[in-house]
């Protein structure tokens, strides 16, 4: 078996004491920076790049990869504890995770997130090992038309995310789309809605938007009350998931992993889309959809598994084609080049120890993360006992540092302040920020691919239905629309709505 001997080589490489150490350093660093609000994997890897000069190529890449998936774990911690998603993909986790935390089930939510991530990480690593080349072929079949149809499906599904009125959810998606339009139009070079500020020429910063509408808005709301209290007035409750909790998370975890593995391969919004899609699917399949948005375990387990699976499979285009799927992968390319390895289609055959070593280290890293994180849950939860007047300035300080460190751009901080206010107003109006974020992330991709497909199709929209993958996705979109608009579903939604009011 080729696969077995390859995996054997990989584990032999990854399990050398030195590489184990760097893997550990990577996942610890990743967890730490993920836990600090606003500071994401991109900024950290950028800051640590020079250090990797002195390391062996395999060790440095193992460490950087560790930071990446470690940050995914850590990012969900802040999303759950203080409603502050550090990465776009953990925005979904914040919806139900934070509600669980407010009900005193922070420990359960964190454990569910960690277990879901580990399961997804294990499965996705196996997928990368076995199916990397064929999966690449599928990713290459995705042209502009396919991406457009996929984004459309994602946006239509976003409406189901909301647990309030459809109209408000729609309004939030549209607002997100509009915010996504800010920046230079890549087809004509025209700046749009930048008000002459060149710092916004490349668009608004996602981290600034997420930290503002989720985190700052939540801080403002908390400050309305008594300032001496802790974040959560309630008791902390059990740290570990009960037997029934475990049962409730199993199916969402498996489905989330499948979705995440599939969508993670696609460059661009893959992992984010996976988390949102998983949430939509779980809510649709649930017997108790009214629980979603109020602390449903499935609403944490599904998206968390999906985003971790997506994070692993986003290595596939990098390893098999040498093409980065997201900014973190672009940094990995930089790290490889500095080490004298130019990523490309030949890495697997030219550098088998490196290729399989990284794959094996992903699984080892995930194992380390769960061993590391489960005992830490008690510690994280205790953080919530810190009086709020101490906690919130610290959160604000880390947010500011984190957001600034992404681009060294002071306008991003102004954006945080502005979006914080917007988020507070939206909170008062009972509008949810999650659909807004999805619109913001997917909007530019939707527009870009629509226009590109039209250019490639010489202005004929028939390309969207003559290409089989695109056509299938459009049919799915239509189905979702029908389901959302079906009278029985509408009635159900209305009940949910009146309950939540």
């Amino acid at each position, binding site marked *: 078996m080729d696969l077995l001997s390859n995996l054997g080589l990989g584990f032999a490489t990854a399990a050398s004491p030195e590489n184990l150490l760097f893997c550990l350093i990577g996942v610890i660093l990743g967890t730490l920076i993920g836990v600090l609000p606003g500071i994401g994997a991109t900024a950290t890897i950028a800051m640590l790049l020079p250090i990797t000069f002195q390391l062996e190529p395999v060790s440095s890449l193992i460490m950087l990869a560790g930071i990446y998936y470690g940050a995914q774990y850590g990012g969900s911690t802040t999303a759950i504890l203080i409603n502050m998603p550090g990465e776009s993909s953990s925005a979904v986790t914040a919806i139900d995770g934070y509600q669980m935390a407010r009900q005193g089930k922070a420990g359960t939510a964190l454990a569910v997130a960690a277990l879901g991530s580990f399961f997804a990480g294990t499965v996705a690593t196996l997928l990368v090992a076995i199916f990397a080349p064929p999966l690449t072929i599928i990713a*290459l079949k995705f042209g502009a038309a396919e991406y457009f149809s996929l984004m459309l499906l994602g946006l239509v599904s976003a409406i189901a995310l909301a647990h309030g009125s459809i109209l408000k959810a729609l309004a939030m998606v549209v607002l997100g789309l509009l915010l996504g339009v800010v920046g230079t139009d890549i087809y004509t070079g025209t700046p749009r809605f930048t008000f002459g500020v060149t710092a916004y020429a*490349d668009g608004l910063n996602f981290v600034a938007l997420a930290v503002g509408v989720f985190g700052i808005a939540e801080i403002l709301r908390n400050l309305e009350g008594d300032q001496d209290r802790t974040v959560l007035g309630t008791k902390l409750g059990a740290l570990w998931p009960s037997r029934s909790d475990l049962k409730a998370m199993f199916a969402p975890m498996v489905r989330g992993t499948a979705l995440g593995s599939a969508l993670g391969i696609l*460059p661009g919004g893959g992992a984010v889309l996976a988390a949102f899609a998983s949430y939509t699917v779980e809510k649709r399949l649930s017997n108790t959809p009214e629980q979603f948005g109020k602390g449903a375990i499935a609403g944490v387990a599904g998206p968390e598994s999906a985003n971790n699976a997506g994070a692993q499979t986003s290595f596939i285009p990098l390893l098999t084609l040498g093409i980065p799927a997201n900014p973190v992968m*672009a940094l990995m390319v930089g790290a490889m*080049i*500095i080490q*004298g*390895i130019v990523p490309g289609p030949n890495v697997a055959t030219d550098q088998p120890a490196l290729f399989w070593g990284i794959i094996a280290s992903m699984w080892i890293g995930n194992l380390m993360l769960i061993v590391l994180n489960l005992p830490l849950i008690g510690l994280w939860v205790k953080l919530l006992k810190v009086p709020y007047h101490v906690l919130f300035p610290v959160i604000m300080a880390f947010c500011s540092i984190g957001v600034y460190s992404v*681009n060294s751009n002071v306008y991003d901080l102004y954006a945080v302040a502005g979006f914080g206010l917007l988020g507070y107003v939206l909170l008062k109006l009972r509008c949810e920020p999650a659909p807004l974020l999805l619109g913001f992330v997917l909007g530019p991709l939707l527009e870009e691919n629509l226009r590109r497909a039209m*250019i490639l199709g010489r202005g004929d929209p028939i390309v969207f239905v003559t290409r089989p993958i695109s056509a299938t996705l459009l049919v799915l979109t239509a189905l979702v629309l029908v389901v959302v608009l079906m009278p029985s579903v509408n009635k159900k939604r209305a009940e949910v709505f009146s309950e939540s009011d």
Partner: protein
Amino acid sequence: MALSVKLAAVAAAAVFASNSAFAEGYPDRSITMVVPFSAGGPTDTVGRLIAEKMSADLGQQIIVENVGGAGGTLGAGQVAGAEADGYTILLHHIGMATSATLYRNLAYKPLEAFEYVGLVTEVPMTLVARKDFEPTDLAGLITYVKENAETITMANAGIGAASHLCGMLFMQAVDAPIVTVPYKGTGPAMTELLGGQIDIMCDQTTNTAEQIKGGTIKAYAVTSSARLDIFPDLPTVAEGGLPGMEVSIWHGIYAPKGTPAEATDRLATALQNALADPDIAAKFAELGTKPSPAADATPAALKAKLESEIARWQPVIEKAGVYAD
């Protein structure tokens, strides 16, 4: 961090031993090198490689700071407005010259806002196509493009990107209106080329070399004046019949206007020493390029290059009628 501090200390000792003539004491603290593009990209890689070697020579750490956005004009603008004390420098590529025309209301004047340190490297470009594209050589491509201009698509990585500049030259050279398809960066453009969604592209060797070696895309020519060591069989554009298409993505180091000559000269010496290091040559070779010769790594050579390139690109961009503002 501790390791790099130690390295810097060792290097500092070495510099003092060998170069006691340098009495001004510059540099006595770390230097910030602004790279006006995001971390991990080809320009950032060039910047980090050269910064590491120059640090060893200067005895002070050069810290790379990525200030991306607006085609590199944000980072360049920041350095233009920085204190001219020699502790803030800029690594920029050909975009310094093209931005003078592409951006009609730039906050700084590229020719007036900077002092010069020297050229770092000139990265050649390659004209490539999806692997099942019909033409087999450059002559065949030119004929094919002229006959089928309406059905051919050419990718680039956005307005002002290297691939866009090279694409403009190609279209003006063959005089055919090909449909151009912009992408956000070279990565997505390359993915679509690999997937056969688009036909041709012209991009830096840094991005294309491994794909060409792997046989996943087809190469027609290099845009340098001589053939490349890594592709001895690949003709130059001039050999293939397009002499006007020679283009390279040249990188230079700048300092804010008014930076003392002692500082820029010291930096130029460090740059020349770094470029002479065989390790840099080896790393640059991986990127499909080579270090600029010592004669080009001087303030005068970079100034001359910038002036001639602004003059060269102005008519090309104006004829194409595309602006990035």
